[in-house]
């Protein structure tokens, strides 16, 4: 039972962490290497809330706002001139990641720190005792995916965004301001990344490089799912399950590379991954 819960919660965490990257990839066609740094920003937002002695729940909106602002600034200054050079844009996001990481290091130091968890303790589910917080993350993943689906399919911004994802040139010629869509989605993607950073902090700790290990998993998940929220859920469950099973039955170190290797092999056999061809 707890194995099953491990799989479900691991998939949920992967999903939450990759969500922001999915939006950026869908609209801009680039993988943002700054995603890891944005997770870190969220982690430190949570740390600041703890230091201030506020309610730990405040860390979630605080992180989202910090990410939104940072993302908006990055898009305006660095990414906008690189629309026509996607591979360069990817490198630039890596540079931005370094800059953010070093600024955080200069401000907070290199040491590992801890933020307060909004929810602790264990719940008993069908006879198994399990961390309440991990269970909460499953709900958060579903809520966030639902909210994004609602925005994409229920608002004008969502409609325009879907148009840009499907065919940017056509959307532009129909009068869609695709620069604004890119701006909105990079900002939103960064906000989601920081929110995810604040959400994973209670599971581990805060340090200037905390985002990097998550980056590769998120990266793989997005490549496997094209730009679909549904196929990413499928990818998250498969990769999450593989990671948990390998870590449990083989060894933890191999578990650490399961996602990367499995995703690479799946993409070799089926370049569209879990997206419907």
């Amino acid at each position: 039972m707890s194995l099953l819960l491990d799989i479900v919660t691991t998939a949920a965490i992967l999903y939450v962490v990759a969500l922001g990257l999915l939006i950026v990839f869908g609209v801009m066609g680039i993988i943002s290497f700054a995603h890891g740094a944005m997770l870190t920003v969220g982690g430190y937002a949570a740390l600041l809330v703890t230091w201030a002695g506020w309610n730990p729940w405040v860390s979630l909106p605080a992180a989202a706002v910090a990410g939104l602002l940072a993302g908006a600034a990055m898009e305006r200054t660095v990414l906008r001139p690189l629309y026509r050079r996607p591979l360069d844009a990817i490198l630039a996001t890596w540079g931005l990641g370094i800059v953010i990481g070093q600024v955080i290091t200069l401000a907070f130091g290199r040491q590992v720190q801890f933020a307060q968890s909004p929810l602790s303790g264990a719940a008993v589910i069908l006879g198994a005792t399990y961390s309440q917080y991990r269970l909460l993350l499953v709900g958060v993943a579903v809520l966030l995916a639902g909210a994004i689906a609602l925005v994409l399919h229920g608002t004008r911004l969502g409609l325009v965004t879907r148009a840009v994802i499907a065919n940017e040139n056509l959307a532009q010629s129909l009068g869609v301001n695709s620069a604004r869509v890119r701006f909105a989605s990079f900002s939103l993607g960064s906000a989601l990344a920081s929110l995810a950073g604040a959400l994973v902090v209670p599971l581990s700790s805060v340090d200037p490089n905390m985002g990097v290990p998550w980056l590769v998993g998120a990266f793989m998940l997005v490549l496997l799912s094209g730009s679909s929220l549904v196929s990413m859920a499928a990818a998250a469950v498969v990769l999450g399950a593989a990671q948990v099973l390998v870590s449990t039955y083989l060894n933890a170190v191999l578990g650490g590379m399961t996602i990367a290797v499995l995703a690479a092999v799946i993409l070799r056999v089926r370049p569209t991954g879990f997206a419907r061809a």
Partner: protein
Amino acid sequence: MLAGALAVLVAPLLLDTYSVNVLTRSLLLAVAAVTVDLLWGYTGILSFAQAAFLAIGAYALALVSSNLGFSAATGLFALLLGLGAAGLAALLVGWLAFSYGASPLYVSTITLVFPIVFVQLIFAGGNFTGSSSGLSGFDVPELDTESWFRVAGLLLVAVTALTVTLVRSDFGRLLVAMRENDVRCQFLGIPTARLKVLLFVACALVCAGAGWVYAAATAVVAPELGNFVSGTELVIYTALGGRATIAGPILGAVSIDAVSNYLNGALPFLWALIVGLVFVVVIVALPGGLLSLLRLGRVRQPRFVPRLVEAPAATPRRDGTVLRVEALDKRFGSLQVLNSVAFTAHAGDLLSLIGPNGAGKTTLMRCIADGRERSAGLVEIGGQSIRRMPPHRCTALGVGRKFQTAAVFETMTVAECLRVARSRVERPSLFRRTPTIALPEAALEVVQATGLADRLGVETRQLSHGEKQSLELAMVLALEPTLLLLDEPTAGLTKQERQRIGALLADLAQRHRLCIVLVEHDLDFVRSISSRVIVLHQGAVVLDGAVEEAVQSETVRTIYAGAAHV
């Protein structure tokens, strides 16, 4: 090069021991950065794995030396072990990465996965590999610091000399062609996937060699040497210095890595912040890297222009069936685009495929030139089935395919494009630029008739649309095909250009006995040149016969005019 070699021999006399130590490391990283430049700058493969290959070479020596001690024999064994392991790993990564249709993003992703796997394996090795703290204090050859500096420097000079020779050779142009348009290269009969894997393996071997020297010189190895952050640092050196310059990455590696060592003590973290900022600024504002600042004022040297000569006539073409298509189906999911298409074409035929938009004309061309495209059926070129062959092997059977929009290599000159097109027939030299380009008579005629012969040194992006079309035709003819597939060769051309192309095609069919299949919308053009017409409608052959037959056919008129007129 001599100056470089002299410099690395003399430099240790002028530097203090600390600097010599620091620079030894930087020189070895520069070797790896040169391979990044060869792969990324020239060939378009953005690899994050080069640091991991270097680390494999370093770990091989560290592991052998820790367990067996150091001697000439174990040292050599470690070198071979490192080269073998790196080569095998590169072969595996390359096989995964360079499959048919893989996007550049996928290739980079695979090279990103490799260092992650490498580091996890080192962790999994426990005490044997030193886990996260690495290995140190193993026996190394007894050489002083200065000598190691010289070894590293000479290695860098040698690798640089080899790389510069390679990128300036005919083969170097082929690398750039693959960067510019990989698909066009495949249809020129070039096995791009195999070449990229070979190049990737060669670069991995160079990195592993540098890794051996690294471990021997420092007697310390750690997993950080090969993780993906180190891999991205090599990319940063290359981008900052200037990609596709060779000198840029070396300067980038040596200056940034060396300065990091001095400044990290004085300004902890701030230096990394500055590097990050400069990197972002260079990517945005100076895509050619810092080295391009130096070149601003320099006058561009005229490009090397080879002479055209006529290639010895190939074996005379036999008349007979060149192309046979039988029961050919193509489905996209439930959509049937081609429905049991069957026809034959002979040497000397000028066969036009006509039909309204969406009839499946271009799809049919694709199925003939690439064995993996069709869903069912048979395609034979010169009596041989194309089975499931990739484009470059279909080309070897005699197929020459010209694309709908002219696909030439934009940053290369006319002569260079023609040279690349000849790669299948004439193996390109790895170490020099051949002063002549031998073209078969047909290609030579096109080049001369269209005036391209006088513009050999011009970059193709400066050519007009019509000139690009002619150049691509000449490139395809340079393959000495028996079957020429042309997708709307007159689209976007002026009336004059159209007439010239028409006359040329008629001549190719009659005098050179080529079998030409073309897709065309201009019915007057079709009428004036074709010997036969096939009408496709909704994926099926409606009519196969003489031009006049098609013109008078009631069915054809209905198809074009729409059902309302029936």
